[in-house]
């Protein structure tokens, strides 16, 4: 039987209790994107500050939602801070792969090896932090949208 401990891992609850990079950035210069889950009313606001070299030098997360959407947003903010826009795009694809969503239209086939990203570790030097803890969400299909809300919002912000 699938247990709640597969979903509510301690690291997830930690990010929920103590969200990282919570707040706002001034727009402009920062970019801002809003994402909604019409099903449950969750809302995520992603602020990105990208420097001239294409590096995300600051990120902030606003909005409100459940433990999964909030912790996913918090972990995402940690994972992308200091990364290039290109690396962030790869992370989106990789994270969606983790959620069993394989998209071919964001520059890859979604598989971890094709992107040179190893979610278990740091094969190409990218620290993926605590994201692996969200793998259990796949066992609760209704919550996948919670976990991907911030990532879809990030994609929107990157495309703006």
């Amino acid at each position, binding site marked *: 039987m699938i247990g*709640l401990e597969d979903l509510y891992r301690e690291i997830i609850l930690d990010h929920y209790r103590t969200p990282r990079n919570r707040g706002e950035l001034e727009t402009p210069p920062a970019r801002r994107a809003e994402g909604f889950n019409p099903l*449950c*009313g969750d809302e995520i606001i992603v602020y990105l500050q990208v420097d001239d070299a294409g590096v995300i030098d600051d990120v902030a997360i606003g909005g409100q*939602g459940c*433990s*999964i959407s909030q912790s996913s947003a918090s972990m995402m903010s940690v994972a992308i801070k200091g990364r290039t826009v290109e690396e962030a795009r790869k992370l989106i694809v990789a994270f969606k792969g983790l959620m069993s969503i394989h998209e071919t239209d964001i520059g890859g086939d979604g598989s971890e090896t094709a992107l040179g990203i190893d979610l278990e570790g740091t094969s190409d030097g990218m620290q993926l932090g605590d994201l692996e803890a969200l793998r259990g969400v796949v066992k*609760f299909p209704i919550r996948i949208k919670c976990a991907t809300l911030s990532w879809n919002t990030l994609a929107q912000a990157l495309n703006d």
Partner: protein
Amino acid sequence: MTLRSNLKSDFPLLEQQFHGQQLVYLDSANTSQKPRAVIDAMTCYYETTNANVHRGSYELAVRATGALEGARAKVGAFINAASSSEIVFTKNATESMNLLAHCWGEHSLTAGDAVVITEMEHHANIVPWHMLRARKGIELRWIPVDESGHLDLSDLDRLLDGAKLLSVTAMSNVLGTLNPIAALAETAHDAGALMAVDASQYVPHVPTDVQALGADFLVFTGHKMLAPMGIGVLWARAEHLEAMPPFLGGGEMILNVTKDGFTTNDVPWKFEAGTPMVAEAVGLGAAVDYLSDLGMDNVRQHEVELTAYALRTLSERHGDKITVHGPAEPAERGGVMSFAYGDVHPHDVAQVLDQSGIAVRAGHHCAKPLMDVLGTSATSRASLYVYNDKSDLDKLADALSAVDDIFSF
């Protein structure tokens, strides 16, 4: 208890287990489960009676037509309509409200006319008026909700001044609040407005007499009252139905069609274009029979007692951690209990409860303006019906402790 204690055994679905636990279904405000009698009536229809209605001259088609019109008569009697021709079958309450906004609204309203609704409406009684506003430039006015979960009627006279329609839910699908429909209808009429009622949460739970309520229009849906999905009702006074233009065009709704145009059928068929949902109507008729056998007074009393037990038990077991929205007095409300559990997000509450086999709804309940009033984006909601009993509420109170275990910060 006022209802049979073995009522659950009439509902085959409730015998199932989820996550190794007996299902505790507390989401009837969303949709109800179906008794064997309803399922059997629909199966029997397809095995013995199915033919297209109002068309064939053979005996089978006559029986099918009789099944449809017999269901209409049962529904009419159930809400004490003056005539079964005042019962228009639709797909659901949302379609009924859209039919009202489209046909009556297009016909009777012009730019600047006001429609008054409330902050506790379901989106089905909001969005059709927004759409009509976009099409015709009508004005939409809102009756506020006060802190106790009741309508704040202190400014009603001003809101109704010059208005053409007051459209109000009889029972909130979030707060459970029972609104004073008969008094509101009288006030609306005094102000020269008509009265529409969203009775989706009312007809399944409270004895309903449309003539005593004094309304002009009333909508509800079958699937919340033990009937199948796919059948809803618009009741309207005959004079209004006569005056309204048709809704969809096609077969059934016409008397005659030529190359130059058409003439419409009599009410209610004028509003029922195409082959109707006959088996679903038969199912609704069987649900009406089932509820009538229980007695709607008994259904209401059962839910008042159970709501009182729920409010008491949740408060005793969880104290300040739980906040139940809406009226505190069970007699002023239905068995719909939206609640906040500490700071835990409703999605997480529902997830943990599901692990104990308990089905509740988490979300905005298609009432986003009301969520804004409550200052939240979502609530958890447990809602009751005839098959629920005290043990279901004890299990809910037990399982909420698991929420505490995981999320107590």
